[in-house]
């Protein structure tokens, strides 16, 4: 349905419900939807499951959401970083649940959700701790782990530019998880640096077509 151009980040995150699974884009600060996370903190939804590559840095962004006790579970590939002390503290206090997923399987499981794939056999992680309890199968002589889709109720992503229809382009390695998360959530919210007229993005270069994007907000309109 038609992409909604939001007046500010608060409008963009309106309606996110308690208990939602929220996919949060970015790899480090590149592609991180900071304005949307800040708006989600103000918005108040709690008991969230957050799916993101990391589990927050320092005291801002995801870390601030975690610090407010709003996140029940984190699904990520790398929670432990030099400045992930907010997550570390919650984890050691047994106040947050953690599912560690190899980075590629994290991306592929969201891709499967977006692509209507029911499950897939993946060689990554076979024979390791992270495959414990998972179904396995040897295919072509190689062990594989059966992985299921990760779906979001909401995806919050950062992109570079949108047209008014909702087509997105990214910039350099800030592309990372955004295009995959945009396919995997019921409601997809993108913060962008600029919004251009429909037709101003070359159709050959669109990375996330408008069909995947529900709401767009320009950064700085917070």
């Amino acid at each position, binding site marked *: 349905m038609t992409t909604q151009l939001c007046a500010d980040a608060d409008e963009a995150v309106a309606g996110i419900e308690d208990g939602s699974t929220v996919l949060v884009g970015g790899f480090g600060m590149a592609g991180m939807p900071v304005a949307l996370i800040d708006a989600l903190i103000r918005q108040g939804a709690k008991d969230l499951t957050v799916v993101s590559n990391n589990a927050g840095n320092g005291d801002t962004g995801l870390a601030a959401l975690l610090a407010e006790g709003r996140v029940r579970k984190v699904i990520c590939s790398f929670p432990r970083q030099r400045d992930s002390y907010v997550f570390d503290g919650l984890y050691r206090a047994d106040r947050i649940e953690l599912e560690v997923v190899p980075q590629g*399987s994290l991306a592929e499981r969201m891709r499967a959700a977006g692509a209507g794939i029911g499950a897939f056999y993946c060689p990554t992680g076979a024979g390791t701790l992270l495959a414990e309890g998972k179904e396995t199968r040897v295919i072509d002589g190689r062990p594989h782990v059966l992985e299921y889709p990760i779906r979001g109720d909401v995806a919050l992503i950062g992109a570079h530019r949108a047209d008014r229809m909702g087509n997105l382009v990214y910039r350099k*390695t800030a592309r990372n998880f955004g295009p995959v998360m945009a396919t995997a959530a019921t409601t997809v919210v993108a913060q962008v640096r600029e919004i251009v007229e429909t037709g101003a993005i070359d159709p050959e270069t669109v990375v996330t077509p408008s069909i995947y994007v529900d709401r767009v907000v320009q950064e700085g309109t917070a």
Partner: protein
Amino acid sequence: MNTDRSTAQEVPAPQDTPGPQDVRGPLGQDDIAALVARDIPHGSFVNLGIGRPTSVADHLPAGSGVVLHTENGMLNMGPAARGDAVDPDLTNAGKIPVTELPGSAYFHHADSFAMMRGGHLDVCVLGAFQVSAAGDLANWHTGAPDAIPAVGGAMDLAIGAKKVFVMMTLFTRTGAPKLVPRCTYPLTGQGCADRVYTDHAVFDVTPEGVVVRETFGTSVDELAGRLDLPLLPLGG
């Protein structure tokens, strides 16, 4: 340094006492990186793990034709960015600002890991806690009960590339071998390591066993006495 994958920061500093049999004593980390760079074929597509493996890039000669992949979505990554070239939208997998070279390409995370998992990279270079005689690799988790597990892209890289090169010191700070009969640390991948570059020797992991390709300040016999696994001489 943000470490999404490798364990290089836990690799001890190299021993710099010369070995008993060779004035070319145990190698420093820089020498190990140079050895790895020497063995990367011209024109290879390569992923260098975070931490020490990253330094292999400094030893690739001009005209090597090597194209570097970074799993956060780029091929033909250039050197670290300095000064005005720093762009927050352009980093490597260690979240260090980098540059692009002519002919680079950007893609999203699912495509990037499809490239890795699909076996399209020629070489990947990783750090390690332990490598077993069967090529099992342990580089993501110490197994300590209070450790917060964090794997990043380690498992994807371990099983994806055509050749997996490991760079590590051969012994821990306390002198325990890191090339072992069986890994005691939790595995990153099974049977995935092809070659192990260390300060004392370079090893090939083969179906017949561990082959010593070259030694630095030591001998195969002396290594065999310090390691708890059979060693085969090259061409033996």
